[in-house]
């Protein structure tokens, strides 16, 4: 019934790892061809693969893991998806119902363990409920503010000899769950009035534009009004990265011009973003002169950390469509003269920093150069799946994302080990696309066993390991805040990555000179049917800049090791 329900839901791939509590389900998988199962090497990777599929397509990914350790290994992946509002259905095996609560072999209370990191979870108490619970799980995961849903199934609920009537429901209705379908027109009108009067506006958009499939509407709105656009880490690709009106990412490692524009703005239009601490810096100093319009599908995100002057609850796509209509119908025009002055100011900020970095003081390759090369070699059109750390910030700053759903990273939870399985999940579903995993020698080792899965399923992703021989982001903070006491941030016994990936049956490359980088990278991407792991030596002393000064305002930033605003 589980496999049949997944098939009827239209699921093509599921990612998982078998175990005692799931043997009935795995036997059913064996006897059909509609749902393909991908065997990972660790359950965390299964959840990341499902998660990345969802990030790239907007549809819920599915992971299947057994009870006990299988389920607990999946928790990090579930939390990763939860923090970034990613739709996912995770089916966990459970011990037989009569054993629940008796500390049986491989028993854990998965409902209890997962509760704080799921949108909802279900326990199956009667086999007849399986189709309707699975339907509800997908419905809840994909609608409203998306999120992961866990379905815990005791082994005796899937006994193949027990037969029950099966009917997969076409739709579901829950009296206690009614996701909102449109914004309040009066509020939208108020917002439009403010937008048309704004003299120093900024559009600040986040992951809600990506998952809400609203990037075309966002682009149309911004073009219509000539407003500058900044994206959060989760929102990159929501607005074309090479467009003049794009001022870069904002926040802790945001661009100088984006953070300056936010600080001096008189109107902030926040769309599908949640004013989190990595964006706002000190909340009490945040954007002192701005009025705030906040569009979000989740009312709890509005006025949580920063009070909104005009809250609009609704799906970003529908709200933006209505906004565009109202502006078209309005007799008023944006204040062109004020905007011209504003743009002059922004261009001045842009020319002051503009994402520069030092290359002269060292012969070592800079990590920024590697990302810029990736952007050049792939034409800004690859899926870039990142791990967590300095390389993630460099990728966010220097890869120019022109399309949504192409930048796949663990933004909210910051899960090291996310990158490789994420790249695999994308490649599995987009076999013809260029898929790059940008990682570091720290992160990659958190899920390096998945190179084996890549071999089994022929997943020729390109791994760019920015090897600085240390946990770079930790070391940067230690340099800046702990007088360079590098406590446990060194990796003193790194493997020979080239030999290691060769042992897994893939292609390894070592690059330590900038002069060799372009050739090597082009070669890597030309090997269409091989996984290529590029071990790229980069400057171990490099820091990510700009970096906001702790407890400061948006405009308080370090611009280099020696220069502060």
């Amino acid at each position, binding site marked *: 019934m589980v496999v049949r329900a997944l098939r009827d839901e239209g699921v093509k791939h599921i990612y998982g790892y078998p175990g005692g509590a799931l043997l009935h389900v795995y036997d059913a998988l064996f006897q059909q061809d509609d749902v393909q199962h991908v065997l990972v090497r660790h359950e965390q990777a299964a959840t990341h693969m499902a998660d990345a599929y969802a990030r790239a397509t907007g549809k819920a990914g599915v992971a299947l893991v057994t009870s006990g350790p299988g389920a607990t290994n999946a928790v990090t992946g579930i939390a990763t998806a939860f923090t970034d509002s990613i739709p996912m259905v995770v089916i966990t095996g459970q011990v037989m119902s009569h054993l629940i609560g008796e500390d049986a072999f491989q028993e854990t209370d998965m409902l*209890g363990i997962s509760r704080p990191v799921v949108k909802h979870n279900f326990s199956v108490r009667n086999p007849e409920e399986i189709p309707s619970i699975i339907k509800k799980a997908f419905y809840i995961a994909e609608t409203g503010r998306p999120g992961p849903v866990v379905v815990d199934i005791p082994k005796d609920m899937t006994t193949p000899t027990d037969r029950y009537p099966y009917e997969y429901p076409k739709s579901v209705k829950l009296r206690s*769950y009614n996701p909102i379908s449109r914004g309040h027109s009066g509020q939208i009108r108020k917002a439009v009035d403010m937008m048309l009067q704004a003299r120093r506006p900024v559009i600040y958009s986040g992951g809600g534009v990506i998952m809400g499939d609203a990037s075309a509407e966002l682009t149309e709105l911004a073009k219509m009004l000539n407003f500058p656009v900044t994206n959060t880490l989760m929102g990159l690709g929501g607005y074309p990265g090479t467009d003049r009106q794009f001022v870069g990412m904002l926040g802790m490692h945001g661009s100088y011009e984006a953070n300056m524009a936010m600080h001096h703005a008189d109107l902030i239009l926040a769309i599908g973003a949640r004013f989190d601490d990595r964006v706002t810096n000190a909340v009490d100093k945040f954007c002192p002169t701005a009025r705030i319009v906040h569009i979000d599908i989740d009312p709890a995100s509005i006025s949580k950390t920063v009070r909104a002057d005009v809250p609009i609850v609704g799906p970003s796509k529908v709200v933006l469509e209505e906004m565009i209509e109202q502006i078209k119908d309005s007799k008023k025009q944006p204040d062109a003269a004020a905007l011209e002055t504003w743009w002059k100011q922004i261009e001045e900020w842009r020319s002051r920093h503009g994402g520069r970095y030092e290359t002269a003081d060292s012969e070592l390759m800079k990590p920024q150069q590697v990302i810029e090369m990736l952007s050049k070699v792939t034409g800004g059109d690859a899926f870039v799946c990142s791990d967590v750390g300095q390389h993630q910030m460099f990728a966010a700053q220097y890869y120019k994302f022109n399309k949504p759903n192409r930048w796949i990273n663990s933004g909210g939870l910051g899960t090291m080990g996310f990158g490789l399985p994420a790249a695999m999940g994308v490649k599995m579903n987009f076999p013809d696309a260029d898929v790059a995993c940008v990682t570091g020698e720290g992160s990659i080792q958190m899920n390096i066993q998945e190179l084996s899965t890549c071999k089994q399923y022929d997943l020729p992703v390109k791994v760019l390991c920015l090897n600085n021989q240390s946990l770079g982001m930790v070391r940067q903070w230690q340099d800046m805040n702990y007088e360079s006491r590098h406590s446990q941030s060194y990796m003193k016994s790194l493997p020979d990555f080239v030999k290691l990936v060769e042992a897994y049956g893939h292609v390894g490359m070592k690059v330590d000179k900038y002069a060799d980088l372009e050739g090597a990278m082009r070669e890597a991407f030309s090997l269409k049917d091989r996984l290529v792991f590029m071990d790229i030596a980069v400057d171990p002393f490099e820091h990510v800049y700009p970096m906001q000064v702790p407890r400061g305002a948006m405009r308080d930033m370090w611009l280099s090791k020696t220069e502060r605003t």
Partner: protein
Amino acid sequence: MRHIISVLLENEPGALSRVVGLFSQRNYNIESLTVAPTEDSTLSRLTVTTTGDDRVVEQITKQLNKLIDVVKVVDLSEGEHIERELMMIKLKANGQMRAEIKRTCDIFRGQIIDVTPNTYTVQLVGASDKLDAFIASLGNMASIMEVVRSGVSGIARGEKVLSL
């Protein structure tokens, strides 16, 4: 400020743990909590008293509303409402104190619901501060052996209702 939040909840296993978990997870405070099924056996009514500034209480109600098992939420303290709590209190009562305790009990419209030669068990219903006042009024007169309080239940005044 103290708030009384009333919640209509699916009467499902695990639903209560989601509510309680939300409070601890988000660092909200619970002063008292009561829960029981309503006349519709598929629904439970839950009342929680909490303290926090307006921003925190707004977040509490929003976050509660997000839980899939939660059908409706209302902050009763926003309008006219009635709150009641039940207390059973076991007191050491002997000698001439027995009469004195009985008198105090009558003043508070409490009932003595169990008697032994040395104890009284008093039942008292009212708003929480009335129960507090009763305990204070006993002063040194009687020594308290045990206190059981139900936690607050609340309902809006007038025609307003919290229902499906």
